[in-house]
């Protein structure tokens, strides 16, 4: 009883703060925590009931781990896990290096107008949908009317059937992803570079530090916290592949599946015709659990080495 009294006293003391948190908390409650109860669907053979959604969940029969089987039942399990992980690792690290480099370069441009133009130009692809990016890519790679094959032909090189040769696609996919995402991420880093106290650079200049030395000794160390946070967040999503990238950009070409099939596209292709909600829920749960574990593990590692930069 005393606990409860304490609880309400606490609430009363912090009511202004709590009130400010309320909208966000409610949002999370309704859109993140409440739906979590739906996780039980992953362990059920979902069948509709005429009394609505909740009755459907309650009345569907338990099937244990059956819904998870299709993810691991064939050789494809290895291929899709490998593709998902390797692509995401490439995206995270190459993306990180490029974004930071671009952010540093942008921050060093003294002409503010030009700097803004470059930023906008790099930022723009982020807002395009993958379908449109897919058509952009197609206009380059189309085998009879594509720009690249046109150039090849005029130079006398034999044209390439891009959409049936899987060996080029790891590079194409990484390139397209970076083109789309790097601009956005670099703005995040640029913002925190702008937040660095100018007097640090002035002091360094008086001491005769060169541009490179300033970047190495001031900019990068001060960027470290935000780099760590961004990377940790990205690692949490390492088991989620960008569906649009892996489905729209290769135009769902079957011969490329060896290098373009990832967990999300596999689940989509396996279940789009049958609409087994239980199995889709199982796949989602699996991704979340692995993602959660990875965030916890990498945060633990970060905390070991550098306590201040850990997320929690």
């Amino acid at each position, binding site marked *: 009883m005393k606990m409860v009294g304490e609880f309400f006293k606490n609430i009363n003391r912090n009511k202004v703060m709590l009130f400010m948190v309320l909208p966000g908390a409610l949002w999370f409650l309704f859109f993140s925590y409440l739906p979590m109860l739906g996780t039980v669907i992953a362990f059920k053979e979902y069948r509709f009931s005429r009394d609505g959604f909740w009755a459907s969940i309650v009345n569907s029969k338990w099937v244990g781990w059956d819904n998870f089987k299709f993810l691991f039942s064939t050789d494809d399990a290895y291929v899709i896990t490998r593709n998902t992980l390797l692509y995401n690792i490439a995206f995270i690290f190459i993306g990180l290096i490029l974004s930071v480099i671009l952010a540093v370069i942008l921050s060093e441009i003294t002409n503010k107008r030009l700097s803004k133009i470059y930023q906008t130009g790099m930022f723009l692809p982020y807002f395009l949908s993958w379908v449109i990016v897919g058509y952009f890519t197609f206009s380059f790679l189309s085998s009879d009317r594509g720009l690249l094959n046109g150039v090849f032909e005029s130079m006398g090189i034999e044209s390439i059937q891009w959409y049936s040769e899987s060996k080029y696609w790891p590079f194409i996919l990484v390139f397209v992803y970076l083109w789309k995402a790097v601009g956005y991420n670099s703005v995040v880093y640029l913002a925190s570079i702008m937040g660095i106290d100018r007097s640090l650079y002035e002091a360094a200049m008086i001491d005769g530090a060169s541009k490179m030395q300033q970047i190495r000794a001031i900019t990068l160390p001060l960027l470290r916290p935000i780099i760590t946070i961004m990377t940790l967040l990205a690692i949490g999503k390492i088991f989620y592949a960008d569906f649009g990238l892996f489905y729209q950009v290769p135009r769902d070409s*079957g011969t490329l599946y060896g290098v373009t099939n990832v967990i999300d596209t596999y689940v989509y292709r396996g279940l789009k015709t049958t609409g087994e909600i239980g199995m889709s829920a199982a796949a989602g749960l699996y991704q979340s659990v692995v993602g959660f574990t990875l965030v916890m593990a990498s945060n633990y590692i970060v905390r070991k080495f550098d306590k201040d930069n850990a997320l929690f």
Partner: protein
Amino acid sequence: MSTRRKKFSLLLTSLMALTLLVTACGGNNNAASNNNASGSTPSKSEKPVELIWYTVGAPQKDADLVMAEVNKYTKEKINATIKLKMIDFGDYSQKMQVMAASGEPMDIMFTCSWAFDYVQNARKGAFMQLDDLLQNQGKDIVATLDPAFLEGSKVDGHNYGVPANKELPAQEVWRFNKELVDKYNLDITNVKSMESLIPLLKTIKENEPGVTPYAMVKDFVPVMPFDYVIEKLPMAVYLDTEDYKVVNILETPELKETLKTVRTFYKEGFVSPEVSTVTSVDDLYKSGKWLVDRASTQPFADNLWSTSMGYPIVSTPAGDPIIYNWSVMGSMQAISANSKYPEKAMEFLNLLNTDPVLRNMIDSGIEGVHYEKVSENVMKNLDKSKDYDMPTFAFGNVMLTYLNEGDPENKWDEFKKFNESGIDAPLLGFNFDTSKVSTELASVQNVKEEYWAALMTGTVDPDEYLPKAIEKFKAAGLDKVMAEAQRQIDEWRAATGK
């Protein structure tokens, strides 16, 4: 640590309390409205019922205008109004799957073999069983419909949908762009198999550089003598089967032979080099830069195609008219399992399938605005008709719709003749229950997506890829799925005496 845990459990408790509250509210609402429903059905003096109707097709600009007129009519006839919600073809299956699963309120919905799959969703419990409703509120439908429709669309012995009265068998034809046929004086009368097309395609390829001789998309499957257990999965029985043995079509000599021909098409450049990723050849249709493709026909289809393409089309048969499960279930309206007014919904469907005024209003819009009548049952589209362009086949009995100018007077008689000419496919009336092999099916679907389009369009060499595909299908568990299908087919034969 311990206070934190206490706080957490308090949070959990309040969460659960909230959940209970939410569910309880939902339950109450349902119960209340159910009472309303049973109260309002018998007497007409009460408030009209609003039926929510989801159907397939691009949303139309003038839909609200037309529906206002429709509602005036239905209110008078059956004391109900309609709320029409249209979802475009590409999105229909997915959106409906989600809405049905989440219990979205709806009364009537479009379902068929190719979008928002009828059999699977009937089994999952998305639709209301209609046996009794059809005998009572829907008895006029039963009277007008070819009995094969209701018989062929039964799932486990029950009807869950009202099929549209339309063409019953499916017959594949080669469609030709007549301008090119005339220009090169091509003889299409002897064309039937894919091989017989080769000389014609060659002529065009050699003389018309900008033209794609065969307009093929990635969904292409050659005409084969099979009745598939599940569309586009390689297990089937032969059309002339005696023992109903399920075979893997990839292992049959017929398919091997045909794939060689398709491969020739690809190598010779009769199809687009990107055919395995092409989802639409609308650009070819619009520009008329194609010679031949394949389509399912119906009586006087050439007229229909010529009108929609804007230039003359001729066709010649590529197969026989055969009544498949999927052709019977080509267009149906079902009543949702969570419908509050199933009787009213059936009354409405009954009216839609028997009343020419309502049927044509929904199909063509308002007389004098979207169309005008030329004579008793012939109409002409007005300019405004482009603001209300509905997919005719999706709204029930097509034989009630007015003829277009230029349609022959005996159009619907020809439809009836065509329906009678159809031969029953061996598996007509059999529906595979996939629940025991759903894990394997999900893997098999993935293998299919990987190899099917590439093989069927000739993009890859069948000698190399066919064995690979067979092996991967086996690894994914196709044999188990086929064994289960065989078991169910044998049971079904024993039960029906086929």
